[in-house]
């Protein structure tokens, strides 16, 4: 039972380190999907926006964690 629990935790941990960050990434992808498949927007600007937002959230969440660890120290 203990092993199954740690395997499940490990499996979720493969994709999720921070639930807020995961929600932001999924929201960015959902917006991209809606723009392309729902609104039939021109793909190039959507792709550029997608990459900029994904890269931007990475910088933001890393910076936030650095700031949190600085405060904790």
């Amino acid at each position, binding site marked *: 039972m203990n092993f199954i629990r740690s395997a499940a935790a490990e499996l979720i941990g493969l994709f999720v380190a921070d639930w807020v960050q995961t929600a932001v*990434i*999924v929201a960015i992808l959902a917006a991209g999907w809606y723009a392309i*498949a729902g609104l039939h927007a021109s793909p190039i600007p959507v792709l550029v926006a997608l*990459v900029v937002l*994904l890269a931007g959230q*990475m910088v933001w969440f*890393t*910076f936030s*964690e650095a700031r949190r660890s*600085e405060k904790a120290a």
Partner: protein
Amino acid sequence: MYQQLFTFGAAFLGSAVESTEALTIVLAVGLTRGWRSPLYGTFAALVALAVLVLVFGQLIVQRVPESTLKLIIGTLLLLFGLRWLHKAVLRSAGIVALHDEESAYQKTVSELQGSVTRQDWVGFVIAFKGVFLEGIEVVFIVVAVGGTSKYFPEAVAGGLLAMALVAAAGVVVRKPLARVPENTLKYAVGIILTSLGTFWAAEGMGASWPLDFVSIFFLAAAYFGTSQLAVMLSRRRTFA
């Protein structure tokens, strides 16, 4: 051709990192409590992982429509890659300690000291758990990279070769592979998987990338540049 090489390389590098971590656990158990039980545990875990690759690999390649597959696997790969990249950036900025195989080895050894019976279940379970849990990441990388790109055999070959090379190095050296530049590898694999995830997720949405597969290299350059910016900002923040 380039796509095949890229698929092979991504599976190889990702699997090499995880295999190194699994090897540390098996070595710690084997050198502390004897080799029989940990080797059985390792073998059992490898069989379980092979079944997972075969079942999920076949299921994914044959049953799921291509666009759905690309969207789902692309999203998962993106989450997986960004998690590695996030950790690699924090390590490069000095906020999180670098992963050290030597200290991981010593920690496992100190937990394993004690009397050993003939049928050593502790050795079996720890080796099984270590190899299986680290191996799940290898399975995900191989299935995701191979299943989505339609180069499943190349991905499996990359994963198997990495595992074989790490195992052979472990047999020769008989101590943790502390010299493997694990943190640099994780950074590189994080960038590759994030780029592949972005590429496939967008294709799953119905978009076509300019220059097709070549755009992955531009994505990798963009993510590398941004991650370096993140390292710089986090470092400044910490040492200011």
